[in-house]
C-alpha cells in the first residue's frame, strides 16, 4: 500500500516536472528562435505562446495605434509543418496571409493610419498520416512596435 502511494506521488511529481519542462521549452524556443527576429521593434511585453496540435487554430486580438509601425511574428516549431497565419480587420477582411507567399513569410511589417483592432489567426495544418501519433509543438505570436 505504502509502495503504491509512493509510486503514485512520485509519478505525479514527475508529471508535474514534465509539464513544467514543456512550458520551459516553449519559453526557451520563443526566446532563442523568435525574439531575435523582432529587432529593431520593441516587444509589447506579453508572451503569447501555446502548444498546438495538427488541425488546431489560435487567434490573437490586439488594437494597433495610428501613427505607429508594427511587426507581427508567428513562430512555430518545425514539427508542426507549414503554419498558416493571417491578419484580418474587425469586419473579417483579410489584410495579410502568408499562404499567398507560399508560407515563406513568418513576419509582417505594417503601419497603421487609423487606430484599428486586428485579429492574428494561426492554423496548424491537418495531419496527413492518421496512423502516427499526433505531435504537439510550440507556437508563439509576437508583436513589436516602433516609435
Amino acid at each position: 500500500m505504502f509502495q503504491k502511494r509512493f509510486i503514485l506521488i512520485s509519478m505525479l511529481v514527475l508529471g508535474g516536472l514534465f509539464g513544467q519542462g514543456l512550458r520551459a521549452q516553449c519559453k526557451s524556443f520563443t526566446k532563442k528562435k523568435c525574439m531575435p527576429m523582432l529587432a529593431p521593434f520593441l516587444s509589447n511585453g506579453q508572451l503569447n505562446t501555446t502548444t498546438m496540435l495538427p488541425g488546431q487554430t489560435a487567434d490573437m486580438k490586439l488594437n494597433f495605434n495610428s501613427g505607429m509601425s508594427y511587426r507581427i511574428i508567428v513562430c512555430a516549431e518545425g514539427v508542426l509543418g507549414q503554419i498558416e497565419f493571417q491578419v484580418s480587420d474587425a469586419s473579417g477582411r483579410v489584410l495579410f496571409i502568408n499562404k499567398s507567399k507560399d508560407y515563406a513569410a513568418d513576419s509582417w511589417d505594417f503601419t497603421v493610419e487609423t487606430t484599428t483592432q486586428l485579429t492574428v489567426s494561426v492554423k496548424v495544418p491537418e495531419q496527413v498520416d492518421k496512423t502516427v501519433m499526433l505531435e504537439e509543438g510550440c507556437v508563439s505570436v509576437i508583436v513589436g512596435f516602433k516609435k
Partner: protein
Amino acid sequence: MKINNISRILVMGLVTGLLGACGNSASSSEEKENAAAADTTAVKKGKKDASNAQKVFYALPSPIETADLLKKAGATYNKDYLNSLDNSTKYNSSAGKALNLGVYGTDLSFTTIFDASSESILYLKKVNNLSASLGIAEAFGDGTMDRMQANSNNRDSLLSIISDAYWTADSYLQENQRPATSALIVAGGWVEGLYIATRIALSKENPEINIRIAEQKLSLDNLVGLMTEQKKDPDVAAMLSDLIDLQAAFADIKKSESKSTSSTDAKTNVTTIGGGSAFVVTKEQISVIAKKADALRTKIINKS
C-alpha cells in the same frame, strides 16, 4: 497486475504534466489549481476534436507605447500624475503587489519616455522590489538595474531594457502557471496609463489626447477578455467587475468603422493600413472616464 497499475499511475503522472503544460499564459497554490482546471477543460475539448479547438489570446499595447503616443500628442511630463514612491510599503498582498507592479511599471515607462532619468531609477527600484517579492526578480533584478544605470543617457537602450524586462516577467509567470498574476500586472499598468492620460487631458485641452483616450475603448475590451479567462481567481474577478463598470463610461463614445485598405511598398515591403475605427468623443465623456479612472486607480494604489 502490478505492471498494469504502475502503467496506469505512469499515465496519470504524464497526463498531469501535460495538462499543466498546455497553459498559455504563478505564486499561490489556488492560482495554480485554477490554471490547471482551465487547462484540463481545454485539453479535454482538444482530445475530443483537436481540429475544432480554438485558443484566443487577448493582448494589450505596451505601457511604453502608450507613453510614447501621449508624448507625440503633445503631453508634458508631470511627476504628480505618478504613484507616490512612498506607497510601495503598503503593498503586502499578492494582488496588491501585482497590480501596483503594473502601476509602477507604467510610471517607469513614462519617466523614461519623458527623459526623467533620475526618477526612472527610483521607479525601477520600486519595480525591482515588488517583482522580487512576487518571485519574479529575474525580470527587473540587479542585472536590469545595472544595465539601466549604464545606459541612463540613451533613451532607446533604456526602452529596450524595460521592454525585455516586461517580456521576461510575463514569460516567467506563464512558465510557472501564474496567469492571474500576469493579468493583474497588465490591468494595473493599463489603468495607470489611462489615469495619466486623463490627468493630462484635464490639465489642458488637447483633442488628440482625447482621441487617444477614446481609443482605449478597444484596449479595455481586450483587457476584459484577458481578465475573463482568469476570473476564477477572486482578485481578478474583483478587478474584472471594476473594469466592466469602467466600460460603461466608454459605451456612448461614437465610433465609425470604415473598410480597411492596405497597400504595400514594393521597396520596403511595409504595408500601410488605412480605414479602421474613427472615434468622436466629447469633453463630457472624457470627464466621466477621468472620474472613473481616478476612482479605480485610487482603489488600486491604496490596496494593501
